């Protein structure tokens, strides 16, 4: 097993009942794992199933351990590593506010085009861009915006799903 620490994306299907998020988060933090991002929403309104997506740094082994411990929680139905490298697709949305004028403002507009970001709010000296894509793409966009008046960022956190016919 690889000893390299990298980011892992873990999907957890749970019964959507009170306290379930606290159970999942409590287990992860109580055992000393960190969380980089977390998303949660109901995905089956009839069966009341929610999907929690957690991005956590760790070695393959620690993440597997975390997954098996998550499976011990009674309302957890399934947990799996859906990291990009494990045939997963990851997407995230970000709202990025740029405050600048002149050259910088033009350049930020030009770059947003390259990244297919949409302008969803504008004033004479600001933009709010909406950007979708892999977490890496969003990281890259934010990096480029830093010298161009980056003011504020809000990110949804990662959602992920397996490629192909495979179902969790």
């Amino acid at each position: 097993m690889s000893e390299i620490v990298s980011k892992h994306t873990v999907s957890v299907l749970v019964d959507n009942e009170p306290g379930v998020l606290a159970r999942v988060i409590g287990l992860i933090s109580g055992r000393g794992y960190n969380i980089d991002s977390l998303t949660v929403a109901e995905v089956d309104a009839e069966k009341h199933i929610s999907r929690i997506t957690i991005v956590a740094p760790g070695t393959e082994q620690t993440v597997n351990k975390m997954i098996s411990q998550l499976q011990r929680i009674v309302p957890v139905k399934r947990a799996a590593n859906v990291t990009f490298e494990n045939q997963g697709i990851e997407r995230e949305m970000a709202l990025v506010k740029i405050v600048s004028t002149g050259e910088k403002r033009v350049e930020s507009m030009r770059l947003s085009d390259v990244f297919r970001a949409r302008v969803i709010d504008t004033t004479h000296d600001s933009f709010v861009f909406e950007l979708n894509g892999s977490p890496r793409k969003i990281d890259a966009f934010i990096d480029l915006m830093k010298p161009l008046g980056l003011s504020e960022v809000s990110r949804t956190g990662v959602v992920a799903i397996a490629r192909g016919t495979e179902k969790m």
Partner: protein
Amino acid sequence: MVNIQMTGAQMVLQAFEDHKVDTIFGYPGGAVLPIYDELAKERDTNQPIRHYLVRHEQGASHSAEGYARSSGKVGVMLVTSGPGVTNAVTGLTDAMMDSIPIVCISGQVPTHLIGTDAFQECDAVGITRPCTKHNWLVKDINDLSRILHEAFYVASSGRPGPVLVDIPKDIQFQTGTYIGPETVKHKSYRPKLKANIDQIDDALKLIADAEKPIFYTGGGVINSGNAAVQLLREFVRLTGFPITSTLQGLGAYPGDDSQFIGMLGMHGTYEANMAMNECDLMINIGARFDDRITGKIDEFSPNSKKIHIDIDPSSINKIVKVDAPLIGDVAHVLEDSIKLWKSKVYKINKSSLKEWWKTIDKWKEKDSLKYVRDKNIIKPQHAIQRLYELTKDKDVFVTTEVGQHQMWAAQYYKFNKPNRWITSGGLGTMGFGLPAAIGAQVAHPDKLVIDIAGEASILMCIQEMSTAIQHKLPVKIFIINNQYMGMVRQWQELLHDKRYSHSYTDALPDFVKLAEAYGAKGIRAQKPIELDKAINEMIEYDGPVIFDCVVEQNENVFPMIPSGKAHNEMLLGDETEKEEISDEGKVLV
């Protein structure tokens, strides 16, 4: 019994009846009064629930554990909100660590007061979330019966554990629909009982190929039940392999059988730990590679292949990487294994096994449990040996507190049946033994129940003496009184240059008088020649006894694998090997 109207409090009692609960341990308070009221109304029916009034909610939790461990049933407890719940937390955590099925019903302030810091309000589900297998706050009367049934199901299936159902007082008063347990099925929780047959076959091939095999069994065998115990015995005899057990597994395989080579781990026998170290195949059945067992993890059994049978998938590869994981219930997996072993006509490697036994017998010659007896002072090991010899013809249930006496009890008291040995292993809770003994005595009113105690531990739940008296439970408390928190003193001697910081107990009570104050019998033995007579007097007395066995103060538990050391670096005690313990070892507990 489907769909009838009743109050929440009545539903709790109805669920008890439907789940064949006839015994509960509890303590009343404002937030559970409606339930206690139902208990009072029910008292005159022909099969009332037997409620054992404890003296502290920690006592209720350990009594429920003792009841569960000794009977294989679910232990049930009832406590009030706020301090009632917080007092129960130690017992819930203990049950979580040792996988004991407990259903704890707690009262809560009425729903409209939740979150207002009301009198005796606490976030019961928040506080107990990490120390229960699952818990529920009931917010609607019509959910209550379903939740109660789920609670019993979750507590007792898969890897057992404690659960808590928190019921606000208004819900206890409200009327709603009770649905019977037969119609309730948990939405998603279905533990896997049977292991994959091809994987079993792979494991059997390893068994057939092994030259230096060992069975390493744990509490999971006992949790799985009597069938698992019988199948384990059959499989071990079928193979002729040596078998060792964890602290929690004692009794699953007979302690006096020639294939049993003693307990393993920090205070296990020399032969058991050496065999674990040098084996080429380890068959772990229902144990979890706990740090008390493995010692230094990098040097744990370096040359063996490992089979691991466990119902809890998260136990597999958690600490030690195994070659053949078998996820399932011990009884199911062993049954399939034995069938397959016979149908495939697998054979063990007889000649290498013979050699292996020769090696083990050599290790046995070290006689690692020997100690020096004394004419004038009772040695603690001797006290437990005599207790064993004088009670072994009876079907005895032994509980313990935590410390040296616990380890000596594990080493010198031999168990031939499961569920007879009840000790706090995972959490190591001082104060466990007396309430646990009370629970075991409740489950087995006519059996001899002994709490092997330390003089420090016993004081942590001594108030339960009063429970024993009230309910006429003739538990025997056998205190190995060394005046020290002996286990702490031993570590200070070995790791902290004999600086005995706060491990000597000054101002101990006179235990004989203490017994009498409660209305029990007190007995004291100070000299080896008094011992047998005094033990017999204790056994024969029809009522609770506190036995103050005054022993050598400086005795240590050996063998010992110091923290951070490997199995083959055991201290045997007689050798004057004064080994330095590394700084790395010192930080371990």
